[in-house]
């Protein structure tokens, strides 16, 4: 039996400082003994009552582990994360095992001759966590889980077997996404002045350095070139910060002066040639079929509060120092490009040198890929030719079509007529029968007569008669009673009209019956003793739904009972069908067994 002993602090909630002591965990329970025996914080709790566990993220302030009960829980703080992780993994294992065992035990009661103990399935912690997470997120699922797995109708493995897809999607979702660059600009590298001296401090983190490399290839290049042959890394960054500072103060004169003195510094201050050439390369690769007018409507710079207002006063116009200025829009565009490109490095951030090299390698790779991509240019030219094609100059694009030949359209129309006439006959063709003994002359005559009468006498007055009017009002105003209103989407309305509780209950019954039936039908054909036992179990559970549904229906008030009855009927029918199938299967196996027994 595994035991874990760990120094920890027990906390009632995360705010309190906590009681220091020793946490001891075994397979069955965990105990907490405070260092100070006088305090009342002594714990002795069985894992059976623990519903789950939560823990603080690695790298966060405190190493916490929270063992949750139905409500509330026990929070322990550990000295460090490795201690916490040991406990966490242990708890996860114990909880996972408990869950399968609890359902497994029930199993064992029902099926004595079970061949393979399925509950012995070894689950990884990650798998367990995924399941827990799904259950936590989906209360519906949790309810079903509780109802069937806890009560032993289904085993844990059976329950999840039908939800592999859910688990897999969860797994794939959690693993794939990588953190990209922050969308904030590098303005974060703010110089800190301490007011007293003239010293300016910049603080650079590996994260920031990576971003600088990505956004400013010249700096990246320079870093690879100078460090550590020509200068130390510290010197390099000092120079860089100096250059940044000059930029920040917008002192292009000073920048020019400094650059003249120090050629390394000049690298940072001048326009980035690499960037420029990259931009040219991109421009060459721009798809010529791109419709620039397409998003002209998206231009919202003319709207107030959009765009950047610059008064132009501060921007002195000295052309000779033009090199040493960077405009805000250049910075913005570059930053946007880098963020959109995303982070392609798989290297752990930390050592600046390796990051720089990895970045250089990936750049190289991209370039060579682009160069070798002849296909792309071919595709591009093909697209251009397609887009700029002039229709008049193209030959006819004749597709080999066989024309549709309809022998005699009357075949179709006549058939429809005959069919409809029959339908009318079925519907009690009273008027039709009367029609037939009418000669057209007589019919037309009587119609003209009526029109003449109208002309002579005038219209019926009044047209709205009180007694009829009331009846019409009633049919129009009481839609629920009218047969015209039991249309296609009346089902949803019925559900909406029911009291909330009943509605939830009905939906839950549907869900649980569906779950049971899914397992039931998937067990056929029964080939093993295990499946036989499973079907037996499911049959019991299904037959238990009858009284529940009936109780639900009978508990309703009279005006809802009918509607609930209508909704319940298909559920009962589905259960009936399953049970009937089970019966007939049993009978057929019996009759099939008899001749065997005789021979």
């Amino acid at each position, binding site marked *: 039996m595994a035991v874990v002993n760990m120094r920890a602090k027990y906390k009632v909630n995360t705010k309190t400082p906590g009681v220091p002591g020793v946490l001891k965990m075994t397979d069955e329970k965990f105990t907490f003994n405070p260092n100070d025996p006088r305090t009342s914080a002594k714990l002795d709790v069985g894992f059976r009552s623990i519903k789950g566990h939560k823990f603080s993220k690695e790298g966060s302030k405190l190493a916490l582990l929270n063992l949750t009960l139905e409500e509330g829980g026990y929070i322990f703080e550990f000295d460090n994360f490795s201690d916490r992780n040991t406990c966490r993994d242990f708890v996860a294992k114990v909880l996972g095992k408990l869950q399968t065992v609890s359902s497994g035990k029930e199993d064992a009661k029902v099926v004595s001759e079970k061949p393979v103990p399925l509950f012995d399935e070894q689950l990884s912690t990650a798998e367990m966590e995924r399941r827990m997470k799904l259950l936590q997120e989906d209360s519906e699922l949790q309810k079903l889980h509780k109802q069937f797995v806890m009560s032993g109708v289904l085993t844990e493995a059976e329950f999840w077997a039908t939800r592999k897809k859910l688990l897999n999607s969860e797994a794939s979702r959690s693993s794939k996404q990588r953190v990209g660059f922050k969308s904030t600009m590098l303005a974060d590298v703010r110089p800190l002045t301490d007011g007293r001296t003239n010293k300016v401090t910049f603080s650079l983190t590996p994260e920031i350095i990576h971003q600088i490399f990505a956004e400013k290839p010249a700096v990246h290049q320079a870093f690879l070139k100078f460090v550590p042959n020509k200068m130390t890394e510290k010197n390099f960054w000092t120079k860089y910060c100096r250059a940044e500072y000059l930029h920040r103060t917008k002192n292009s004169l000073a920048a020019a002066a400094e650059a003249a003195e120090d050629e390394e510094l000049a690298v940072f201050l001048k326009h980035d040639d690499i960037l420029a050439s990259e931009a040219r390369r991109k421009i060459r690769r721009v798809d010529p079929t791109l419709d620039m007018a397409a998003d002209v409507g998206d231009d919202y710079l003319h709207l107030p509060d959009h765009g950047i207002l610059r008064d132009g006063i501060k921007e002195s116009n000295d052309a000779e120092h033009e090199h040493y200025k960077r405009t805000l829009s250049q910075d913005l565009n570059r930053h946007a490009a880098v963020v959109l490109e995303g982070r392609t490095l798989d290297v752990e951030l930390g050592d600046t040198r390796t990051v720089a090299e990895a970045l250089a390698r990936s750049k190289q790779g991209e370039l060579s890929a682009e160069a070798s991509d002849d296909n792309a240019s071919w595709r591009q030219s093909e697209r251009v030719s397609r887009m700029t094609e002039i229709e008049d100059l193209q030959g006819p694009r004749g597709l080999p079509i066989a024309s*549709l*030949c*309809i*022998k005699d359209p009357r*075949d*179709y*129309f*006549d*058939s*429809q*007529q*005959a*069919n*409809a*006439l029959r*339908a*009318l006959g079925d*519907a009690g063709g*009273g*008027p*039709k029968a*009367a*029609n037939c003994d*009418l000669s*057209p*002359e*007589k*019919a*037309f005559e*009587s*119609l*003209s007569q*009526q*029109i003449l*009468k*109208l*002309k002579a006498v*005038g*219209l*019926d*007055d009044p*047209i*709205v*008669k009180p007694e*009829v*009017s009331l*009846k*019409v*009002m009633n*049919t*129009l105003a009481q*839609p629920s009673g009218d*047969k*015209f*209103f*039991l*249309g*296609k*989407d*009346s089902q949803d309305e019925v559900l909406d009209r029911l009291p909330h509780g009943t509605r939830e209950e009905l939906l839950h019954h549907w869900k649980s019956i569906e779950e049971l039936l899914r397992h039931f039908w998937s067990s056929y054909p029964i080939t093993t003793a295990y499946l036989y036992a499973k079907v037996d179990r499911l049959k019991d559970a299904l037959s238990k739904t009858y009284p529940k549904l009936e109780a639900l229906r009978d508990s309703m008030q009279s005006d809802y009972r009918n509607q609930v009855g209508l909704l319940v009927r298909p559920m009962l029918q589905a259960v009936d069908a399953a049970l009937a199938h089970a019966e007939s299967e049993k009978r057929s196996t019996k009759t099939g067994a008899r001749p065997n027994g005789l021979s």
Partner: protein
Amino acid sequence: MASAAPTKLYADDVSLVVVLIDTNPFFWTTSEKNSSSLSFADFISHVLPFLNAIMLLNQLNQVVLIATGVNSCEYIYDSSLPHQQSADGKMPAFYSEILTKLEQFVSKDQRLAKNDSSLTMSSLLSGSLSLALCYIQKIFRAGPLHPQPRILCLQGSPDGPEQYVGIMNAIFSAQRSMIPIDSCVLGTQNSAFLQQASHITGGIYQKPAYPDGLFQYLSAVFATDLQSRSFLRLPKPPGVDFRASCFCHKKTIDMGYICSVCLSIFCKHHKKCSTCGSNFNQSQQDASSTLDHKRKTPEA
């Protein structure tokens, strides 16, 4: 009269209502004998005030009346045209004009019947629907400003199955131009055509339970403009029967075989399509792929 002055601005509550009235003599003669249903005279007495009411609702509203006969269809009345004012005291001028036109139409319809030996008993709904759609298209093309059109079918006689294709085409063309087809069925049975028409085009289908309260049904359900409809709780249609009938035995089926070339429907597998002559049995695989087994269920 709301004549088409070019400067007028149409709000979204201005309607153009094209009313199709059924003048099937067979239907109206039998219905006259039946005490529970309306006579044609009663029917017209209910419809004319309704037309008047629509024109009262908005000065710019426009009404077009089309008669659906058994041999022909015709425009009876168009409120946008200039009319001579000759009120005789007994009824408004346009009532008597409509009655005179109707009388002429019926006698013309009768003359056509004499010439044509193959007499049909059903009204030419497809024809009047096409007339209505043509009129609306003319309005659409007259300029960017036009009233909101809709079609109201006041149908008594049973569906004419021989018009199935024509009516379906009209329905789809109405759907494409977003013209709702409302239908008010006065006969004893529901009209499958009009049920589908209203369902597809988003119109209202109504079969009044008390035909003698027709005016009330018309004014309560069909008078409001399309904009106001969204605020009203209008009657919902009962289920629509979308089932098709097979070409070979004319049975209404809910599952069958469809020719992949001409979309003819059959209740069982054929070697050759009887409508277009396509051969289904080129090879075993072809046979299974060209014939799709599709299911259509009635929605009721």
